[in-house]
């Protein structure tokens, strides 16, 4: 889980990639050309960002003739959501242990 969340966090660490992912989530399937027009960076840069997003499975694609259409795969965010839940449980457990320690500190005095 740690490594799956890791690749998602890293892929989304770059603001341009977040913007691309968001654009695909909102507007649905798009070509590199359409994304480039909106992203404000060069087409090779957009392609590079898309390949990082694809590796993290945040973006899927399909070919149609000479064009490739990209789409967001929001299910890929699941490890990130799971990770947040993991840490939520982690800290609650730590608080419980802290409570026990504080009681022991009383008796040790």
């Amino acid at each position: 889980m740690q490594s799956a969340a890791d690749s998602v966090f890293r892929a989304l660490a770059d603001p341009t990639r977040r913007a691309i992912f968001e654009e695909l989530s909102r507007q649905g399937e798009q070509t590199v050309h359409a994304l480039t027009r909106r992203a404000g960076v060069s087409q090779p840069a957009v392609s590079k960002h898309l390949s990082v997003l694809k590796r993290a499975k945040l973006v899927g694609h399909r070919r149609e003739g000479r064009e490739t259409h990209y789409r967001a795969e929001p299910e890929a965010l699941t490890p990130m959501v799971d990770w947040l839940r993991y840490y939520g449980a982690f800290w609650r457990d730590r608080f419980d242990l802290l409570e026990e320690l504080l009681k022991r500190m009383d008796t040790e005095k």
Partner: protein
Amino acid sequence: MSTVGDNPRTLVVERVFAHSPEKLWRALTESPLLAQWMMANDFEPVVGHRFQFRREPLPQWNGIVDCEVTVVEPLQRLVYSWGIGGGAAGGGLQWVIEWTLTPAEGGTLVRMEQSGFGLEQKANYQGAKYGWQKFFANLECTLGGLEG
């Protein structure tokens, strides 16, 4: 009582303990005490001190958290970084852990905030436009759907 913030960018856990801020500060800052409820560590309450929390390795994690103390305000506030996989410098992930102690009725309110997601906020045009806050706000429905 403990609660987790609704905002997915920041995790907040709070609880009132029926103990004094002095005692909680000891539990937070004395290494042997800290080890009893957190993890084995070489913590020192000194700004700039680098330390590690260590636990037994897990399949996908070596069990090491690399930290650096950034704020020490005795009895009130303690902040350190929390790096997994070498932290930000080592290509891993880095968070900020902030502890706040506030005298409360019946004891002390302890608040732990984990923030940052270890992701540097690049201050460029796109960064300003597409900060994490906006990103998560826009994906609220998506995340909600996943949890459903």
